[in-house]
């Protein structure tokens, strides 16, 4: 067993991190770090190593470290990923690995952005079950009805999709893919009665019609949600006037 662990290859990798300290810097700047990593390590492990052993001022969010909480979405080599789900060996380690904050939201410090506009769009679509009755027991649903919106239940609100969207980059008012995904989760839920309300909300100037089907969101989603498809289904629901 020990031998097997010892056999995991180690290598030196350069990380170029986009750093910004609002108390000192006018502009963000690239800072490079060389770290010795193993084939089993993820980008998050490299960030930890830098923070814990090289420069404690490096600032980033993470909580679960296992792809559940959605707090460590960042732009790694130009693509939005979770640092905790990206193995370093899967990247091109013959070149530096570029790490930036996700785009389109105000940078607060280093890799931390202000998520408030993102959460506001989420709140605006009423992300909760809207039902008029007060049932004495659970609301039943057939497996088929449950399957209808299964994909969009997987969202962890990491913002990888919304901040990969070129429409969101230039127009911060756009609701963005994540809000639409979470609206989809309720619009197509047979137990929910708020579909019309959400359809009305997303038929906004800054709603689903801003989407240009670039598929960046689908590509970015660490949960493998077919985000662009969900947006298209919401567009269809708005055209029909019902789910």
């Amino acid at each position, binding site marked *: 067993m020990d031998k097997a662990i010892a056999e995991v290859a180690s290598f030196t990798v350069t990380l170029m991190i986009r750093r910004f300290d609002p108390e000192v810097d006018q502009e963000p700047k690239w800072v490079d770090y060389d770290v010795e990593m193993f084939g089993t390590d993820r980008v998050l492990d490299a960030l930890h190593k830098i923070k814990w052993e090289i420069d404690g001022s490096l600032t980033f969010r993470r909580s679960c470290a296992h792809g559940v909480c959605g707090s460590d979405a960042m732009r790694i080599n130009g693509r939005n990923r979770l640092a905790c789900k990206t193995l370093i060996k899967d990247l091109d380690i013959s070149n530096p690995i570029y790490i930036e904050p996700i785009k389109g939201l105000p940078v607060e410090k280093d890799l931390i952005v202000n998520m408030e506009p993102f959460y506001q769009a989420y709140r605006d679509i*009423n992300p909760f079950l809207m039902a008029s009755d007060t049932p004495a027991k659970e609301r039943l649903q057939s497996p088929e009805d449950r399957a209808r919106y299964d994909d969009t239940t997987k969202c962890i609100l990491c913002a990888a999709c919304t901040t990969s969207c070129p429409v969101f980059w230039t127009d911060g008012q756009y609701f963005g893919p994540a809000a639409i995904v979470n609206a989809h989760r309720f619009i197509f839920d047979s137990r929910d009665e708020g579909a019309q*309300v959400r359809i*009305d909300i997303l*038929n*906004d100037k800054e709603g689903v019609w*801003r989407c240009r089907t670039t598929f960046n969101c689908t590509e970015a989603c660490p949960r493998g949600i077919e985000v662009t498809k969900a947006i298209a289904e919401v567009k269809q629901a708005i055209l029909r006037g019902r789910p």
Partner: protein
Amino acid sequence: MAVIIETPNSPRTRKQANWEKYGWLFMRVSGPLLIVLIFTHLVVNLVVGDGIKAIDFAFVAGKWADPFWQVWDMAMLWLALIHGTNGMRTIVNDYVEKETLRKGLVTTLWAVGGLLILLGTLVIFTFDPCPAGAAAELLPSFCPAN
């Protein structure tokens, strides 16, 4: 500390009604129509018969003497200009942040688009290859005055 949630079930106040849905639909309806209109137009003008050599003043005059091609060209003109202008409006909405500038650009777009549609339609339906009273040397050979 009690957390007060403000009536989460009340629908968000509606923003201004808008035409985005119809704009989106129009792009998807006009697109396929334009494929048929434009490619037929190109084939008829440039490929069939004598091909590109056939195009001259008389060729155009001949087409616009036929109500079929008048309607065809009008459809192409209207659809392409509304489609193109609406597409440019989308791009302006994407990139322009200052509201006054955005409004100004969008208004300019529709003004120019509208003017081109108006002039184009006027030409298609009032086109007269042999206007009465024009100097004979300016008229094409097929005019009766010659």
